């Protein structure tokens, strides 16, 4: 948001390059350390995904695999019928990301630009929907879905998450649009543009970077959701990837290497998605900066 509308603050730096260097190196080291700390769990996952269960139990999670063991990956893929789960996850997360962004934009336009009376309260209410623990929502949602005949359908999950994610999106976009330059809007209105036209021709191009970020977030958040899909999708044919991953965990026993293998496979699509959209994201930012 700040990227398009407020130009980056130019801080006067001392001209001496070496002076600037010391602080930069410290920051670089800190960032490097933080990045490493973030990567440690992934490293463990990778390490244990290619280990046989016996190897894992005998030598623990820290050891180097004694053989390159891929049966865990294959077991997981076949046991949970991964392509079906992947399709379900992509369908649900993709639909939610797009729908939630559209809904957020429309409601944020009304609240942020339209200046509806009591908008602060409305936004607060929206945010509440996002802050409520899902455990509290689950029973009412179950009953509504059952009454509507949507229980055990992907549509139910798409609707629920579109609303939940749009609540956050509205909050964010409304505050962005609250600071939208009135002069731009007035100029457009003087040129004879209606509200609809202003939204698509003036507002949308300016908030596109924010929207791209929201799109990516909504996709990944929905992708990782567990509880609501677990409750709403009971057929193996409709389940999502995180629910499939949970099927590896038994009553009293766990199979750590297969779980790691499963986590690895399940994580890849989300990472891939992020990498692909990372490009669009930065392109969106530069496009906005040109304006």
């Amino acid at each position, binding site marked *: 948001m700040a990227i398009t509308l407020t130009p980056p603050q130019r801080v006067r730096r001392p001209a001496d390059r070496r002076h600037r260097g010391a602080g930069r190196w410290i920051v670089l080291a800190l960032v490097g350390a933080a990045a490493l700390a973030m990567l440690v769990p992934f490293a463990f996952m990778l390490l244990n995904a290619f280990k046989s269960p016996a190897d*894992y139990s005998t030598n623990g999670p820290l050891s180097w695999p004694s053989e390159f063991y891929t049966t865990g990956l294959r077991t997981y893929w076949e046991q949970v019928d991964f392509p079906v789960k992947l399709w379900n996850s992509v369908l649900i997360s993709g639909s939610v990301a797009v729908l939630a962004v559209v809904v957020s934009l429309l409601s944020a336009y009304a609240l942020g630009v339209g200046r509806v009376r009591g908008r602060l309260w409305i936004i607060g209410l929206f945010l509440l929907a996002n802050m409520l623990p899902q455990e509290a929502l689950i029973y009412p949602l179950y009953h509504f879905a059952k009454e509507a005949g949507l229980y055990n359908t992907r549509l139910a999950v798409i609707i629920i998450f579109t609303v939940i994610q749009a609540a956050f999106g509205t909050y964010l976009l409304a505050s962005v649009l609250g600071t939208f330059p009135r002069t731009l809007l007035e100029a457009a209105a003087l040129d004879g543009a209606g509200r609809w036209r202003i939204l698509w021709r003036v507002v949308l191009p300016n908030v596109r970077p924010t929207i791209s970020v929201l799109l990516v977030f909504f996709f990944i958040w929905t992708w990782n959701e567990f509880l609501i899909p677990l409750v709403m999708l009971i057929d193996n044919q409709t389940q999502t990837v995180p629910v499939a991953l949970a099927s590896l965990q038994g009553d009293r026993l766990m199979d750590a290497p297969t779980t790691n293998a499963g986590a690895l496979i399940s994580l890849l699509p989300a990472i891939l998605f992020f990498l692909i959209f990372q490009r669009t994201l930065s392109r969106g930012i530069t496009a906005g900066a040109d304006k």
Partner: protein
Amino acid sequence: MRRFREVAIAVTVAALAATGLVACGDDGGDSEAKVLKLWHYESANSAMGIAWDRAIEIFKDEHPGVEVRFERKAFEQIQQNAGMILNSSEGPDIMEYNKGNATSGLLSSQGLLADLTEEATKRGWDTALSPSLQTTARYDNGVMGSGNWYGVPNYGEYVTVYYNKELFAEHGVTVPRTLAEMAAAMDTFVAKGVTPLGMSGAEYPAGQLFYQLALSRADRAFVNNYQLYANPVDFKADPLRYGAETFAEWVRKGYVAKDSASLKAEDMGTGFISGKTPMIVSGSWWFGRFKSEISFDWDTFLFPGNTLHAGSSGNLWVVPETSKAKSLAYDFIDITMRPEIQTLIGNNGGIPVAGDPATIKDPKDRKLIEDFNRVSSQDGLAFYPDWPVPGYYDVLVSGFQGLINQSRSPEQVLDAIAKPYQDGVAEIKRD
């Protein structure tokens, strides 16, 4: 326009007729059902997974024209949602479900499970299962032990002692037959700097060891009081007092590592698999995994001196009240009780409930099953310490963590676990 209306009416009438026909099919007995929707959550290579796959095959052979729609479920999913699933029309015709008051008991009291009493007597399940196994199959207003049949267990489980034969031989220790001999054996290990007993304070093993120790001084009346609320239980008297004090003594003497307070059951299991721990006291659910992952020589022995042991039937086959193929479901349960399937469970590291140990090939498997049969036939299954009241598992875990890291005395721990028990029982009795 007129034409359109005619078509619309025709379609509506056809649709109504179709649903009407389906409804008739439902009412006219489910022997007509052509689909059996079956769910369970055992992994494909476990004893139950293998045996039940075979049972499905047999079922298909005997019911040509019936489609079996099997789905393997996540344990967590059934645990969290069984009530919601069975309350909808999307549920299965037969499924595996957890035994106990909080699970099968609760659903049976809500009318979500079909009453199997008639089938159990007609098909002889009531004679195939010993009384202590039947306890978890029958529920009266949601409380196990008596009343109608709501589930049928296929396998059993109990808490036993796993030991590393090589470490025993190396330190000149023989298999103990009394609790005193067990203590002496552990002294030998401690003297040589080896912690004899693997433990996990953060999960169920600590509570189960405490319960095993208490059971060494207990009789069936205590179990009925503690588990079935026959009479109030005094936590400050034996056997529970003895259990807590002996547990504390074992910690003091170094039989149990103090840093095991924060360990998970998985850590205890991998400790044994890696050959570092001479003994663990834990359930038969480890058996299959140990068999496939351990390279050294190991075996099991019953907790020495006890006639009562923590243990019960395994999970149950239940038939939801909404099942559209009840009689097919009963046929399937009956197949799983046959000797062929029961032997298959036994030969793959499980404990059959109606099995003949003589048909089991592997000596380790046979020992496990013979021990279970001995316990079961002398009415020695005492269930688990966390069963009596909802949420008691966490109470026990935090209580015995305090005992393992010696931050609390046995008296304090007994006080801490007595109150939630008494409150919970009062709550159950009020309903």
